[in-house]
């Protein structure tokens, strides 16, 4: 028990004075508001172009920053969280494999894709049940948490998913970027609680910006998706599922949320010192502990940088194909966010 308490504290090092001096709360708020405003303007103005450029530049690096962050949040010893992490990592692996298997089987002509919505609904159900299991396990780790009410919510979401599996998947596409804002909130709560009030005030701007974008773009004509790449981008934003909605609005909204997501992982969290010194593995508990794995962690991070380079190279050679591959593989980082966010609640 005592060890578990120490692990928890070790995973949340207090921000040092040098880190605290790195940025003031006012500058933090200005950066947040300015970033959100510029992102909304760019996404509304040139949605397709900004989407292409954003994914090219930030998709890989933001995954590396997430990996770095998750390694920092991973406790040095799992202790009584062993089962939680076992279920989490097994779920991430199996769900990612199943997600990648669906298009792989289709393109290998081993599956016609005739019952694609049913397959998608099954995958979504497994995802929800996995999340439900994690929530229940996390709830049992403390007597103060009673999250039993989450079970009916999970089953209700399963029911809605089976009614409209494709719309449910589209909802994940739009909701996932917002999870980064939740991460930032939880991190501020632990390390800089005095900043949270300012942060919450800044968050009020988000629905206003989204409402403004919807109001401005709802009557715009749909984007010309006459080439393969543009078609992929509009489909990813849900143009096929929501034919009566302007694809300009859908793509702009999705790009705006993606920009926020990348901004939090690449700018906001490192700015407040959440990822520690990027070049030092000593800020990672698994590497720092006695008998830890500093070389393994360093190798993982270097390999991550190599993957980022490969991703950039792939985008340069065949952007459209690489984009498809990236968004298929990227489901792993979407899934990985769930257990780490639950550990922070």
């Amino acid at each position, binding site marked *: 028990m005592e060890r578990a308490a120490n692990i928890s504290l070790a995973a949340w090092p207090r921000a040092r004075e040098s880190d605290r001096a790195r940025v003031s709360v006012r500058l933090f708020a200005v950066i947040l508001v300015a970033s959100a405003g510029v992102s909304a303007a760019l996404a509304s103005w040139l949605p397709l172009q900004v989407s292409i450029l954003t994914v090219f530049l930030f998709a890989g690096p933001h995954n590396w920053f997430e990996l770095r962050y998750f390694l920092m949040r991973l406790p040095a010893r799992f202790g009584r969280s062993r089962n939680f992490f076992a279920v989490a990592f097994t779920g991430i692996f199996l769900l990612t494999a199943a997600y990648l298997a669906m298009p792989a089987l289709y393109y290998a002509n081993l599956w016609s894709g005739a019952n694609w*919505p*049913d397959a998608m*609904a099954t995958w979504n*159900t497994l995802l929800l049940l996995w999340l439900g299991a994690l929530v229940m396990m996390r709830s049992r780790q403390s007597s103060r948490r009673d999250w*039993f*009410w989450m*079970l*009916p*919510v999970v*089953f*209700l979401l*399963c*029911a*809605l998913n*089976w*009614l*409209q*599996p494709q719309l449910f998947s589209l909802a994940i596409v739009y909701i996932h970027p917002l999870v980064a804002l939740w991460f930032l909130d939880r991190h501020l709560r632990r390390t800089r609680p005095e900043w949270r009030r300012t942060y919450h005030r800044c968050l009020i701007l988000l629905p206003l910006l989204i409402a403004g974008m919807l109001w401005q773009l709802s009557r715009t004509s749909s984007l010309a998706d006459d080439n393969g790449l543009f078609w992929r981008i509009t489909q990813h934003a849900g143009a096929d599922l929501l*034919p*009566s909605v302007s694809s300009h609005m859908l793509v702009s909204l999705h790009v705006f949320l993606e920009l926020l997501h990348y901004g939090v992982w690449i700018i906001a969290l490192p700015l407040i010192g959440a990822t520690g010194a990027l070049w030092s593995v000593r800020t990672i508990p698994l590497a720092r502990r006695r008998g830890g794995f500093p070389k393994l962690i360093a190798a993982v991070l270097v390999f991550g940088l190599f993957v980022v380079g490969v991703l950039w190279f792939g985008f340069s050679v065949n952007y459209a194909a690489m984009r498809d591959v990236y968004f298929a593989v990227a489901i792993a980082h979407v899934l990985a966010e769930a257990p780490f966010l639950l550990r922070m609640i």
Partner: protein
Amino acid sequence: MKRTFVLCTAALLLIGSALFAFGDIARPKPTPAPGKVLFHTGLQIVPDSKAYEARLQISQETLQRIREATANSPANTSMTQRIMQSSTRTVMAGMFMFLAISFAGVWLARSTQRRGQKAIAGALLVVGMLGAATVIVRANAGPPGYYYWQKLPENLTKGQGTRGGLDIEIVSGDDGIKLIVPMKTNKAPGEE
């Protein structure tokens, strides 16, 4: 062994020839796709003794609405039709809905906190009010559509107009425009 081989070969040849013969059969006529309601509007039937030809007059505004509805209509079926067409998904959705309600009940039963009970009581009150409001609104809803069209023959005989609800459907084929009027007959079964 040899006899079995010959019999199997003959059977395979027979099946093969059947496949070829089937290839000459005309393609089955595809089942016509069900119509799709684009929007709801009204229709008035007016008898005109001076008219030589029957006319279906569509106002400019209605025509514009038809154009817009057709332009916005996706090529595939509607949401309700998609749900109804997949029995597996309906069954799964129903099962999870049942589980959701069951676990919500368990959660309500084991919830002992006073604050929680107040919140639940408030939620139930809101749901009850919404339900009551729904019943009240339904009570003020008009009679079913066929009620208005029942008077059509009588009104036509009297030379009077009849007004009732109308769904505009877009159907496949080239049968022009068909007006289907709901008429309830009072004849007993078997009576002609």
